[in-house]
């Protein structure tokens, strides 16, 4: 009987995490979505001043432990997330739960031989993990991730023109279901071909280029990638017939190394000279890119208190002034009012339309 394991929710990436947890580590993935209850639990037991993702994760872990999950997996790397695990483990132990706690060490200080590093890391969780299995399922996870990110890009770009409501997102849900039951390359490749064709043949309206509205969404990575954290903001724009581009996804963050500051700083002149931390330099770069491409607007998302993204704000404001591109700044915490958010988004869209009319 495989032990149940939980890992924090992030967007739809459970299809990728499942490969790691189940196929590679021989555990059973406990898979429950984030709900109001999750949020309440997280908020109750977290330090007040910590950023929202910590609270989401903690709530999720508590619900898991209440449901007999024995293994918790957290990510260690990036920003403050590097320390989430140690405190979450302490809080949960103080609450009386018994479990094993593991961390995936993904911080960018690993300079050499990443493959060996990740293999050793995963062996801490499953001692008899052999290298072939690691490589095979690791590759499956990477290809799955690249494909789901590709599909999501298409959805953000095209679903605003769908002739049948929800046709794009229903296809994605179908893809997720199928991938959850795929354990080998053969089914993975079959689904890639099948859904590639499917997504590109969904009927869409033909809109003239000059009538298309486009926005870019940038900012702090958890709020960007988790639709519960951002109150489904991408869906909102697509429903309002606006194309969305959201350059930061898990593929960009991991395999593509898109947020590597050394690469980015060559292109962020004259706005910044040094790396601002976490994904903030990337936020600045992408703002410059989409301002130059004359997008209609930019949306900057972050969790309340996110330090590097706060540093980016005055710089984004300057880019906004220099290129005359409106930027909407949204800061999410567990108290964010859905109605208040909706009002701001609708006002922003109205403004984009008025600018066009001029």
């Amino acid at each position, binding site marked *: 009987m495989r032990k149940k394991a939980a890992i924090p929710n992030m967007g739809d990436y459970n299809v990728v995490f499942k490969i790691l947890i189940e196929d590679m580590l021989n555990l059973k993935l406990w898979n429950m979505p984030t709900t109001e209850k999750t949020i309440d639990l997280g908020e109750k037991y977290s330090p007040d*001043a*910590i*950023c929202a993702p910590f609270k989401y994760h903690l709530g999720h872990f508590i619900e898991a432990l209440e449901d007999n999950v024995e293994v918790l997996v957290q990510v260690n790397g990036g920003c403050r997330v590097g320390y989430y695990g140690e405190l979450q483990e*302490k809080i949960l132990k103080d609450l009386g739960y018994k479990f094993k706690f593991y961390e995936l060490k993904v911080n960018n200080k690993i300079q050499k031989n990443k493959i060996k590093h990740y293999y050793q890391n995963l062996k801490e969780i499953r001692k008899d993990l052999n290298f072939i299995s690691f490589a095979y399922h690791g590759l499956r996870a990477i290809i799955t991730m690249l494909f789901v990110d590709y599909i999501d890009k298409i959805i953000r770009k095209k679903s605003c023109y769908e002739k049948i409501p929800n046709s794009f997102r229903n296809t994605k849900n179908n893809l997720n279901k199928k991938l959850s039951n795929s354990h080998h390359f053969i089914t993975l490749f079959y689904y890639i071909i099948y859904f590639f064709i499917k997504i590109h043949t969904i009927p869409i309206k033909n809109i003239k280029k000059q009538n298309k509205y486009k926005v870019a969404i940038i900012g702090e990575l958890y709020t960007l990638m988790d639709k519960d954290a951002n109150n489904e903001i991408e869906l909102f724009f697509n429903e309002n017939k606006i194309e969305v581009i959201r350059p930061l996804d898990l593929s960009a963050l991991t395999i593509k190394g898109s947020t590597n500051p050394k690469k980015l700083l060559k292109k962020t002149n004259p706005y910044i000279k040094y790396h601002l931390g976490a994904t903030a330099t990337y936020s600045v770069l992408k703002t410059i890119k989409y301002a130059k491409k004359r997008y209609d607007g930019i949306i900057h998302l972050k969790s309340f*208190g996110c330090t590097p993204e706060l540093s980016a704000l005055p710089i984004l404001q300057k880019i906004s002034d220099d290129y005359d591109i409106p930027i909407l700044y949204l800061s999410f915490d567990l108290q964010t009012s859905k109605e208040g958010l909706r009002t701001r988004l609708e006002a922003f869209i109205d403004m984009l339309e008025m600018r066009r009319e001029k």
Partner: protein
Amino acid sequence: MKIGIPTGFLYQRKKVLWKSFFKSLNIEIILSENSNNQVLSEGKKYASNEDCLPYKLYLGQIASLLNKCDKILIPRVDYLTKEDNICAKYQGIYDVANTIFNNTSFLDYNIDILNNKNEKDELLRIGKKLGKTKEETLKAYEKALNDEQKEEMELFLLQEQKLKSEKTKILIVAHDYELEDLWISNKIIKILNDLNVEIIDANKYPKSKALEIANEDNKTLPWLMQKELLGSYKYYLPKVDGVLFISSFPCGCDSLFFEKLLRNTKKPAINLVIDEQIESGGIETRLESFIDIIKEKIK
């Protein structure tokens, strides 16, 4: 040539070094106004309301230096050691200041040990930029380093004397840029003095030793300053009667780290989260009852 230095953030940590370094090079230093309501309200114009109090004060301090000097010194830090991260405010501060205060001449130097930018080379570069020879800059730096180390030892020894006191001893775990900024710490220090408490400052423990102690048992704490506080806390904990953690809202590093330490501290300990509303609020009541509890315990 006048160099302006804001008195927040790294200043408390580096003031001995900087003062000595620039003095040896015959360059005049102008310190920013000490934090006060005016400095805060200036700073708030440029900051977000989500930024911490020390950050708002720092921006206000920069503003107070405009037009009073030729260049303003803004160090930018990413890795103070090869392994340890630092609050992201330090990573971004130069670019933020440069963007907000257009046309101001900033003197930046960049500490990023992971990418081979260390303090010595950077200060040599600054010396050259200010028209000094390599020899004199190097000599000034070496003397400054010596002065810094001497001062660190003196402060440690002074505090060792305090530990002999009969009064109730409270270890304050907070950053030097909070404790040494009287606008921030004055009320708390006054209350503790009125309660006849001996204040032990976690920042007075030699930093490199503190780091060693922290590295001995903690494997995941990513931030240098928090590690130094951890090492110092471990040293002083057996010698004090209680611990007062102070952090600025909404500091992420501190909110995580102090919460963890608080849960592990077997002696009386409280966590004060402060913001600019420090004048009001129940700080006095909390501190009084905290000290009462300790005094009861000691009896």
